[in-house]
């Protein structure tokens, strides 16, 4: 470069203040979203020699492949290449943790719909039409489809595991009162609007460049290299953005990426694999269904003395990420309550269905709702308002969780009382009692429930992150970090962190696509950790650049290093300062490094899984929600009338983005608990295989009144600018709506007991719950 740019065309600041942290800035891509110019993988231009992939599927839930005749497939119009398991040059198992997820079935068939072979053809339609021409013979074996059958026959993917605190069985025996219950809960389809997709382009070195819609580009890179039998450096994975992830693109994005890469290397042509919606719903994992049982011992006030639980997760046909998921259900089976003494058993069941996987909350919701169901049952038994029983059982500072982590920060007692006051819980409880006394066709229900969610990957090594920051000579800043953007606003938050760290206006910063050749060996963008970890890594990178800049500034301004200030888009000391870009230009000429990578690892955490004791979480995120519903006794139809939420995000990095995560997470949780009903038939075929028969919420389903506020308190843990993670916890606020529906049903038996209402509480299930309550049952 001969000449430095005179004036960088960096956009001007939108507002006066330069420090963007804590401001509700729109997402950096917001304008591109609304203009249709944001590019997703399938929007990338295709080449004239582009190929498209489709897969042929197993027709039985469990069995052996006895014959595979692909001759008609090979000769179909447009078909260029066909592969089956034997054609994979490297490792054909793309499992993330344990073995068991073959890219293409290798003799053994694991679920109905499993990819058995794949086709690359000159058009999407040609590929889809060709796969129907295969002749596949399968020898069926007896399949276990139902979770209850798997539990009963001890059909497991991993051995059971247990947490134990004190002596729960003795506590249960000694307690004045006790009860037991169970909950069967369904899974949940992610229904990211952008289905799974990847494009692979061969490189001149014999490797491949993969564009993937993935939450975990490093894993895509590693698995593609494994499938191809190449060193990792021969593969690059790139993620500009996803059209939604929700956990469904943590491990599941690997399949289309690996198949596209395999064909790309075989044919030396660019290859795209986009799963049509039905294939996506059939061939990718979902939230784990659970069958949970609980026994609680308690006193006449409903104070718990001891609890035992068995949480049985339906992992599907392989372990995938299920160890961490069932573990996290166990970590959240206490939710926010001091169980005093507890035995929490986790069972990792195998069923002959697609392997279940990560979904926002990662098992936490399935554990948490069990605690809430139990507390409601306890409240009915002792005849108290469930809110009072909840408040009486909340953790206090110093209490121990069933896995040995002490409670250091007890936010929920204040938070729940504040919410109850703000939303007139007591007055509405009375008004609803009056209303229900006067009405038989329509009844109302109310519930206020907390969420306490542990923040950190429970797999310790994943709690690390990297970032890369460049400052160019015109003062524009390029930011790259290991996290991926799936709509959660991560890129915007990390850019805000960098803007504050360098004292510059937000508009100087451009965040680029996540790439494995910029920041290597990254962790998935998951576990709500994206901003916590990548924000810290980016801050670390900024601080490393600043070290050189501060030394140079001290020299330039003739002051001590401690006097140098980066603020208001200027760098200065004492009364003297320069505009940021002018200072950067001088620094460059003085040969000061303007680029650094950054690294972060979460401190403190230390959990011994074998001993089931320790500190898995850096801190807890908290929130509470109060839901009011009405139900029709005629049909079981219902409406969520009003929801009030108070949620703890520490010192928010971006309140607008956090609000969006809370509202969106709530409605997604509401879908899981109300209308989203997955169904398989007895043969293991997914019956709910399209949006025509699997119903996620629409705009009509959000609460008629929806009041969401942030709980204003800094994180006690030393997180990035004292903020808290927000991705997953709000999903579990929707448990309040499920509890409110059950409350409304219980009004039909004068709250003597809670009728059975297994999630999802569809109108049909609400109807049967009302019928059970009306019948008055002996319980």
């Amino acid at each position, binding site marked *: 470069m001969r000449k430095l740019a005179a004036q960088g065309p960096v956009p001007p600041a939108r507002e006066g203040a330069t420090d963007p942290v804590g401001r509700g800035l729109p997402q950096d891509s917001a304008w591109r979203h609304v203009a*249709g110019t944001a590019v997703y993988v399938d929007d990338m231009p295709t080449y004239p020699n582009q190929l498209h992939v489709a897969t042929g599927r197993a027709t039985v839930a469990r069995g052996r492949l006895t014959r595979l005749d692909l001759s008609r497939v090979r000769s179909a119009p447009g078909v260029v290449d066909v592969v089956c398991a034997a054609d994979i040059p490297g490792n054909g198992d793309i499992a993330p943790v344990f073995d068991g997820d073959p890219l293409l079935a290798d003799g053994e068939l694991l679920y109905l719909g499993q990819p058995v072979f794949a086709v690359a053809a000159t058009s999407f339609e040609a590929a889809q039409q060709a796969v129907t021409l295969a002749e596949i013979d399968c020898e069926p074996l007896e399949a276990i489809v139902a979770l209850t059958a798997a539990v009963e026959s001890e059909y497991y993917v991993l051995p059971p595991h247990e947490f134990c605190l004190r002596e729960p069985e003795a506590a249960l025996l000694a307690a004045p009162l006790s009860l037991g219950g169970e909950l069967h809960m369904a899974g949940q389809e992610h229904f990211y609007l952008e289905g799974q997709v990847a494009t692979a382009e061969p490189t001149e070195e014999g490797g491949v460049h993969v564009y993937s819609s993935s939450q975990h580009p490093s894993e895509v890179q590693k698995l593609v290299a494994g499938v191809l039998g190449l060193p990792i450096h021969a593969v690059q994975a790139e993620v500009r953005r*996803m059209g939604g992830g929700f956990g469904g693109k943590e491990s599941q994005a690997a399949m289309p990426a690996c198949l596209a890469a395999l064909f790309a290397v075989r044919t030396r042509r660019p290859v795209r694999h986009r799963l049509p919606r039905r294939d996506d719903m059939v061939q990718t994992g979902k939230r784990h269904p659970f069958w949970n049982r609980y026994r609680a011992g308690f006193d006449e006030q409903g104070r718990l003395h001891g609890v035992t639980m068995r949480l049985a997760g339906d992992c599907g046909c392989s372990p995938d990420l299920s160890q961490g998921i069932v573990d996290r259900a166990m970590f959240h089976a206490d939710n926010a309550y001091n169980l005093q003494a507890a035995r929490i058993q986790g069972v990792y069941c195998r069923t002959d269905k697609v392997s279940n996987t990560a979904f926002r909350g990662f098992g936490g919701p399935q554990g948490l709702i069990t605690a809430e169901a139990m507390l409601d049952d306890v409240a009915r038994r002792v005849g108290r308002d469930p809110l009072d029983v909840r408040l009486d059982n909340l953790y206090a500072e110093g209490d121990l969780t069933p896995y040995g982590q002490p409670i250091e920060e007890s936010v929920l007692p204040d938070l729940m009382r504040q919410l109850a006051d703000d939303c007139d819980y007591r007055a509405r409880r009375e008004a609803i009692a009056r209303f229900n006394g006067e009405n038989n066709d*329509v009844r109302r229900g109310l519930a206020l429930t907390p969420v306490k969610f542990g923040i950190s990957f429970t797999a310790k090594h994943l709690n690390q992150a990297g970032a890369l920051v460049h400052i160019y000579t015109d003062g524009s800043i390029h930011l790259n970090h290991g996290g991926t953007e799936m709509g959660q606003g991560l890129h915007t938050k990390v850019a805000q962190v960098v803007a504050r760290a360098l004292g510059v206006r937000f508009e100087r910063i451009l965040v680029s696509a996540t790439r494995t050749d910029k920041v290597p060996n990254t962790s998935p963008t998951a576990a709500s950790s994206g901003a916590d970890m990548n924000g810290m890594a980016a801050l670390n990178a900024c601080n490393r650049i600043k070290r050189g800049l501060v030394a140079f500034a001290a020299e330039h301004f003739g002051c001590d290093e401690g006097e140098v200030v980066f603020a208001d888009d200027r760098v200065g000391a004492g009364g003297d300062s320069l505009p940021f870009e002018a200072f950067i230009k001088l620094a460059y000429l003085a040969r000061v490094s303007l680029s650094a990578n950054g690294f972060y690892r979460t401190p403190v955490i230390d959990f011994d899984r074998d001993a089931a004791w320790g500190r898995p979480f850096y801190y807890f995120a908290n929130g509470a929600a109060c839901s009011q519903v009405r139900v*029709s006794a005629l049909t079981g139809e219902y409406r969520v009338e009003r929801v009030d939420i108070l949620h703890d995000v520490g010192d928010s990095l971006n309140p607008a983005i956090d609000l969006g995560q809370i509202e969106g997470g709530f409605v997604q949780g509401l879908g899981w608990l109300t209308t989203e009903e997955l169904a398989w038939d007895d043969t293991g075929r997914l019956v709910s295989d399209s949006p025509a028969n699997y119903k996620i919420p*629409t705009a009509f389903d959000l609460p008629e009144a929806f009041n969401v506020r942030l709980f204003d308190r800094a994180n006690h843990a030393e997180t990035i600018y004292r903020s808290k993670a927000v991705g997953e916890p709000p999903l579990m606020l929707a448990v309040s709506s499920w509890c409110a529906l059950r409350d409304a049903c219980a009004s039909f038996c004068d709250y003597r007991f809670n009728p059975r209402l297994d999630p999802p509480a569809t109108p049909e299930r609400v109807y049967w719950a009302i019928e059970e309550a009306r019948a008055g049952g002996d319980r």
Partner: protein
Amino acid sequence: MQLTVNGVPIDATGSAPSQTLLRFLRTRAGLPGTKEGCASGDCGACTVLLAGPGEAPRAVNSCITLLGSVAGETVVTVEGLAGSEGPGRHPVQAAMVDCHGSQCGFCTPGFVMSLAGLYAADGRGDDAIREAIAGNLCRCTGYRPILEAGRRMYDYPPAPVVPECGALAAGLNHSGALPAGYHRPRDEAALQRLLREYPKAWLVAGGTDAVLELTQRYAAPDPVLDLSAVAELCTIDDGTDALRLGAAVPYSRLEQLFATLSPPLVAMLERLGSRQIRNRGTLGGNLANGSPIADMPPVLLAWDATVELAGADGGRRSIPVAAFHRGYRDTVLAPGEYVAAVTIPRAALARPHRIFKLSKRFEDDISTVLLAVSMEREGERLGAARVAYGGMAATPLRAAAVEEILTGATLDDATIERACAAATAVFTPIDDVRASAAYRRAMAAALLRRALRELREGVDLDIDAVEALHA
């Protein structure tokens, strides 16, 4: 084959007319802003605006709209709405940004276009906004900020682009022949000629169900016979004795027609598919595909409607709707025959009636059970009663045993309970993905009880008829 896309006339002669409009836009037209989320008209990510000459723009699902069916029309995609940041942006886009209405952004173009359609019609108020976006799924935001954008979009300087699109289409060549394999006749004579020439032709009107054969099963029908422009089939004859509705009339026109004639029908239609579906889907299609869970047949049964069938040879016959369905997805339509019109007697329309749709999700969901009840009152006694159900049997069906109990009876509690017991007993529905047989049977009675009580007491027992609770 010409069409206008975002104000630019495009000669699409080289493109296959039986591909979807979405595929054409994303590949040939180089406009990937419109997304595919499901390829079945269920998610709305593919929403674009469409207008024929002199027509107001309407939102449609481009994923199940065939390219050949929009020849001569104007299409507006998200790219054409305004473009990028800065001057010229559409108020919907500005409001969506300011309200934080996008997160992952993938559904966003569809929401922008649905709201732009509402904006073009000057639709205001929360009900109108919800109705406009009922066919758009968002998995990230929880919808609150999108509703907010729908409210605030009128606060910005007005938009120039959309209202002109009908005028643009006027300049196109509409009469030009479509490429081989796709026929879009303009009158019944031409339609019948084509039916004689191609007895195996694949018939499509709005395509909201039929096109799923292409997008879900990858069928490649040849030739395609598109009914959507046949003038007689698009005609509504508002006669003194009866309403005659052309089979290719889309639901959105029925909503306007029945606004005063039957508020219960309009309330049901608002939950039939989505705005995009109702802008394309037709009454004739709802009958001809023979589904037992189609929403219109029970209503037509309760109204003693007749269906008019026409054949390739020009022959016509009228039969009661009750005689149209023969079995599961099976009708009396003979080869070469098509549904031409439906006739509803005015007298039937004037009778008190109730229509209740029950589904797992309130909006844009297929019915679990649908009930249509119509009855004459003769003082204290009932005259003839019609009770028709969808979702309870292999075909839409009248419950003769129930009608028998009601006809001539006094509508007291005992009669109601006897009728409800009969409604439960008379059907043997199935368990499926939407509901159990037991629930369907219980609902056959529950919906009937609600209808009879409402008709007797003049009350509204809908869950939404409850007073708001003020603590």
